[in-house]
C-alpha cells in the first residue's frame, strides 16, 4: 500500500506506479513508449475523476487530514508576499499550533492567522498536531485586535482537529480563551474572511472562524465534533465514524446547501495536495474577490451584517 494515497485511492496509486515503471524502462532502453504512458495517464485521470466524483463524507474527512495536504504556512509561502510571523500571546508563551503575522496579498496589507500542523514527526509534536492551547488563541486575539487598529483585513485559515484537551490547557483557561475570541471577533471593525483548508474541528476551529465570509476548500470539513468522537458517544463505537460523518453533514458541499458556507473553492483533481500551485491560484483568486466585496462596505454596515449573520444561525420564530 502506498502511504501517499488513502485506501480508497489505491487503484490510482497502482496505475501511477505502473506509469513510473514504464518511464524508467523508457529511459533505460530508449524505446519510444510515450504513447503507452499517455494512454495510462489518461486512464489514471479518468479513474481519479470517477473515484472523486462521489466521495462519501468519511472519505472527504480522510482527505481533509491527508498527510500531504497543504497547511497554512504552505499557502502563506505560495500566495502571500512579505509575510512576517509575529509570535507569542504576551502573557505566557508562543503556541506553534497557531501561526499569525502581517503579509501582503497582491500588495494589500492583511493579517493572516491560521492553525498549523507539522509535516515530520518532530514537527508534528512541536505543532501539537495543530491543536492550540489557550496561548495560541490569545495570540490570535492580540493579532486580530492589532489588525483592527491598523485597518487591515483579517484572513484566517482553519485546519485543526480541535483545541488541545490537556491538563495545562485547562489550567490556563482553554474555554475562556475560545469564548473571548468568539466575543471579540463579533465586533472587530475590520473585514474577517475565514477559509477552512483542512479539518474544521469544533470550538477550536470556530475560535478563529467568526467571520463576514466563510470559504471552504472542496475536500475540507467543518463539524461540531470529530466523526470518531461523535460515533463513540452516540453509537458507542468509534468504528461508526463513517455513519457519524454522514449524519452530521460535515463536507463543504453539504454545508453550502445548509447555508453556512459562502464560497466553495474547488480543488484540483485528486485534492489540493496533488497540485499545490493550482490550489493556491484558486484560493488567492477567491480571497481577492471576497476582499473586494467586503472592503467596499462601510464599517457600520459590515458589523451589522456580521451580527445578523450570526443571529441567523438556527434562528427560530
Amino acid at each position: 500500500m502506498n502511504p501517499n494515497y488513502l485506501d480508497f485511492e489505491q487503484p490510482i496509486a497502482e496505475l501511477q506506479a505502473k506509469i513510473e515503471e514504464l518511464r524508467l524502462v523508457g529511459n533505460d532502453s530508449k524505446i519510444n513508449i510515450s504513447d503507452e504512458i499517455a494512454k495510462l495517464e489518461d486512464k489514471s485521470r479518468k479513474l481519479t475523476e470517477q473515484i472523486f466524483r462521489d466521495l462519501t463524507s468519511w472519505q472527504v474527512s480522510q482527505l481533509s487530514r491527508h498527510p500531504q495536504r497543504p497547511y497554512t504556512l504552505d499557502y502563506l509561502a505560495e500566495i502571500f508576499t512579505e509575510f512576517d510571523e509575529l509570535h507569542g500571546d504576551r502573557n505566557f508563551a508562543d503556541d506553534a499550533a497557531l501561526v499569525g503575522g502581517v503579509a501582503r496579498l497582491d500588495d494589500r496589507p492583511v493579517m493572516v492567522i491560521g492553525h498549523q500542523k507539522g509535516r515530520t514527526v518532530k514537527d508534528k509534536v512541536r505543532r501539537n498536531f495543530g491543536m492550540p492551547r489557550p496561548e495560541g488563541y490569545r495570540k490570535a486575539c492580540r493579532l486580530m485586535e492589532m489588525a483592527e487598529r491598523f485597518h487591515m483585513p483579517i484572513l484566517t485559515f482553519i485546519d485543526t482537529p480541535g483545541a488541545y484537551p490537556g491538563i495545562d490547557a485547562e489550567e490556563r483557561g482553554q474555554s475562556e480563551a475560545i469564548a473571548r475570541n468568539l466575543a471579540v471577533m463579533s465586533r472587530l471593525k475590520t473585514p474577517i474572511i475565514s477559509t477552512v483548508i483542512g479539518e474544521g474541528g469544533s470550538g477550536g476551529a470556530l475560535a478563529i472562524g467568526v467571520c463576514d465570509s466563510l470559504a471552504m476548500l472542496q475536500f475540507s470539513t467543518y463539524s461540531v465534533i470529530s466523526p470518531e468522537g461523535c460515533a463513540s458517544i452516540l453509537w458507542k463505537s468509534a468504528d461508526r465514524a463513517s455513519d457519524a460523518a454522514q449524519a452530521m453533514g460535515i463536507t463543504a458541499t453539504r454545508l453550502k446547501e445548509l447555508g453556512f458556507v459562502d464560497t466553495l473553492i474547488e480543488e484540483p483533481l485528486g485534492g489540493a495536495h496533488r497540485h499545490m500551485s493550482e490550489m493556491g491560484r484558486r484560493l488567492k483568486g477567491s480571497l481577492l474577490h471576497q476582499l473586494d466585496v467586503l472592503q467596499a462596505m462601510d464599517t457600520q454596515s459590515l458589523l451589522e451584517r456580521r451580527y445578523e449573520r450570526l443571529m441567523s444561525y438556527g434562528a427560530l420564530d
Partner: protein
Amino acid sequence: MSWLDKIVPSMGRTARTDRRNNIPDGLWRKCPNCEAVLYRPELERHHNVCPKCDHHLRLNARRRLSWFLDSDGREEVAAQLEPVDRLKFRDSKKYKDRLAGAQKATEEKDALVVMKGSLDGLPVVAVAFEFEFMGGSMGSVVGEKFVRAATIAREEKRPLVCFAASGGARMQEALFSLMQMAKTSAALERLSGAGIPYISVLTDPVFGGVSASLAMLGDLNVAEPNALIGFAGPRVIEQTVREKLPEGFQRSEFLLEHGTVDMIIHRSEMRIRLGRILRTLTDRPSEPAVTMLEDVEGDDGAPYSAEPAR
C-alpha cells in the same frame, strides 16, 4: 411443588407491595456524595444542598429560577420555542425520538428556561439550563432563547444572570449547534458594550461548547462549590495525555485557584451575594427589599439605567 414453595413467594410479593404503598415514590433520595438517605422535602427546603455533607445536588431549571427570582412579577420568555430536526439526524435512535423522550421526562421543550423578574426588587433577566434535557446540551433553541434573554437585558437595561449546567454542544444539530457558540457570544458582547452586567453562574457540570462560549464571558464568573467545569471532559483528557488527573482537577476550587472564576458561592447565599454585587455594579442602594420598594415607587418602576445619573 410443596405447599411452602407456593406460599413463600406470594408472601414476599405481598410484603414488597405493602412497603411500596406505604412510602410514596421518591420521598427519599440518596446524596450522591455522602450517600446519606435524605428526606426529600427537607432536601428541597435546602435547595437540593445535602444537609449532611453540604454537597450541591443538581437543581432543575424551573425550580432554580423560582427560587432565585422574587415570587412576584416573574414572566417566562420565549417559552413557545421548540426544537427543529433540520438534519433529520439519526444515530442509534432518531433525534426526533430523543427530543420527544426528553420533553416527556422534563416537561420542558428544550434545555433552557428564560425568565424576566426581579432579585430582591432589582429587575433582572435570569436563565437556567435544564441538565436533565439531553445533558443541557446547546442546540438552536438554547442559543436562540439565550440571545433573546441577552437582547431583552440590553434593551430594558436589566442585568443578566445565567445558571449553566451543560455537557456542551448538541451533536444532533451538528454545525447549527456549533454556531450557537458564536451567536450567544456575539449577543453577550453587545450586552457588555451597552454596560449591562452579566453574571455567569457555573453549576455542576459545565463543559464543551457552553463552557467555551456564554458560560465564561461573565463580568463575573461565579461557581457553586465542587462543580465540575472545563473545556474537555476528564475522560478525554486522560486518554489524550495518558496520565492520571490531579486531585480536584476541574473542580470549582481548582478554577478559583487558577483564576478562571471570581468566586465560589454557596447556594444558600447565592441570592444575597449576587443581589448585593448587582446593586453595587448598577449603583443601586445597598439595602434590598424595603429600600428598593420606595426606590421603585420614586422612579416610576423604571429598571436600572446605564446612563449616569444627572
